[in-house]
């Protein structure tokens, strides 16, 4: 159990995909204008990340590895992620049209969100290296926790930006520049979690 908690903490803080690995910056800047759409986007990404960890693990362990065609991992992962995103899009359009509208173009963009491919790749590397006896459940946990970390970063950023809207910023910094500066400072703060838990592959 302790290992699972360690994985969770590591994925949310030390290995936060946005703020320490700098993956998935497009939705991080694009969807963090409003708090509710940020939460929606975070949940969608978490959902896709968990499902992607699940599917990529199965495909890797039961298809790619036995046939020794592991060099095809990226292309098959992209295939899996793209199909999943399509599925999520359909589900959202059917059951939550408002969220579908709020996420807009960023929802199909999850397809090419490098954070999700990053999670899949990191999982596979951890499975291969076998340092932490990385199995199916741990992969799922890592995917879910990485999504949670992404959501956390997105929600924090959205909260910051909603306040930034009303603050007195010099004209040259208005809009994207001040957002980038805030993101950089947040990333700096997240460096403080370094060595809290070590689950990394180098």
């Amino acid at each position, binding site marked *: 159990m302790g290992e699972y908690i360690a994985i969770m903490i590591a994925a949310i803080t030390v290995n936060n995909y946005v703020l320490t690995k700098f993956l998935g910056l497009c939705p991080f800047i694009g969807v963090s204008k409003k708090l509710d759409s940020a939460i929606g986007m975070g949940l969608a990404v978490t959902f896709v990340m968990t499902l992607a960890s699940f599917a990529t693990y199965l*495909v890797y362990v039961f*298809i790619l590895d036995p046939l020794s065609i592991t060099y095809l991992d990226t292309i*098959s992962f992209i295939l899996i992620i793209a199909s999943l995103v399509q599925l999520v899009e*359909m589900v959202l359009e059917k059951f939550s049209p408002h969220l579908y509208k709020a996420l807009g173009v960023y929802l199909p963009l999850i397809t090419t969100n490098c954070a999700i491919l990053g999670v899949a790749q990191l999982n596979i590397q951890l499975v291969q290296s076998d340092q932490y006896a990385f199995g199916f459940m741990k992969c799922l946990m890592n995917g879910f926790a990485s999504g949670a970390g992404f959501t956390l970063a997105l929600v924090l950023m959205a909260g910051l930006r909603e306040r930034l809207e009303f603050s007195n910023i010099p004209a*040259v910094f208005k809009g994207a520049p001040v957002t980038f500066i805030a993101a950089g400072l947040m990333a700096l703060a997240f460096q403080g979690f370094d060595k809290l838990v070590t689950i990394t592959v180098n």
Partner: protein
Amino acid sequence: MLIFWAILSVGLLSLLFGLGLALAHRKLAVEKDPKIQEVEDILPQANCGACGYPGCAGYSVGLIVDDVGIDLCPPGGKKLIKKLAVMLDKEVIEGEPMIARIHCSGDLRTAKQKYNYNGINDCNQAVAMFGGSKVCSYGCVGLGSCVRACAFDAIDITKDLDVIVNEPKCTGCTLCVPVCPKDIIHMEPAKTEIFNSCSSLDKGGPTKKYCNVGCTACKLCEKACEYDAIKVENYLAIFDYEKCTHCNDCTVVCPPESIHAWMPDELKSERSEIALVDYAKAQLEKDNKKVEAKKVDTDSESNKEEKEKEKVEA
């Protein structure tokens, strides 16, 4: 053998996902009004966003689902409103067609420059440098951000950076209005012809110093107008188009010719080419004079040096 497995496994995987998605699409399909597609087909497909929706597809959804007005599409004009009225059983709304006008005609030849701008070719960038290269702080920057914003190729830029709206081509979509850092693009009724192509709120003297075509607030147009359609406010002649009859009295009396009608393409390009030749000649003369002056300087200096040398030798 390896390549066989590779092709088979990835092919089967994609087939599986494809079938899964097709199934999901059937089960999770959201029923859409077939009218949305019909409406989208008759929209102009310019995707300019003037209606406030993301593209023509967005507006067609808005028309059917949100029941918004049928007069929001400027590029479609009256024709589209009539078509939509028939299709959606609504009354025809007679909106007045508008066009964009750039209220500045100062170019490299007519308006003085503070400095030579060699930066990024974008008006908003140039304005960050002391409000643009023109001495006039109200005038057109002339780098054509509006030209690039126009979805209908209706804004032209001449060789000496005069930006003109080609009025017959303008659809009144207002895409160019927010792009302008100087806010000098105004929407005006399309049936009007004459306008004051100056936005300077400076007094007559300063305006005259830095621009040959700037409104000097001399009030000659106000006096010439029989219909009380021109008012000079804040040192700028402003038209009341409800009273204007396009009699052209004001364009005749205007000393800097800042009040004029939109000019046809040929005339404008001819004018600018002539102007460009003049401008280039003037620049050449200036440069030549500078070079000559330098030569004289160096000659005299070298002479002095030689004389000094001779003195030392002596």
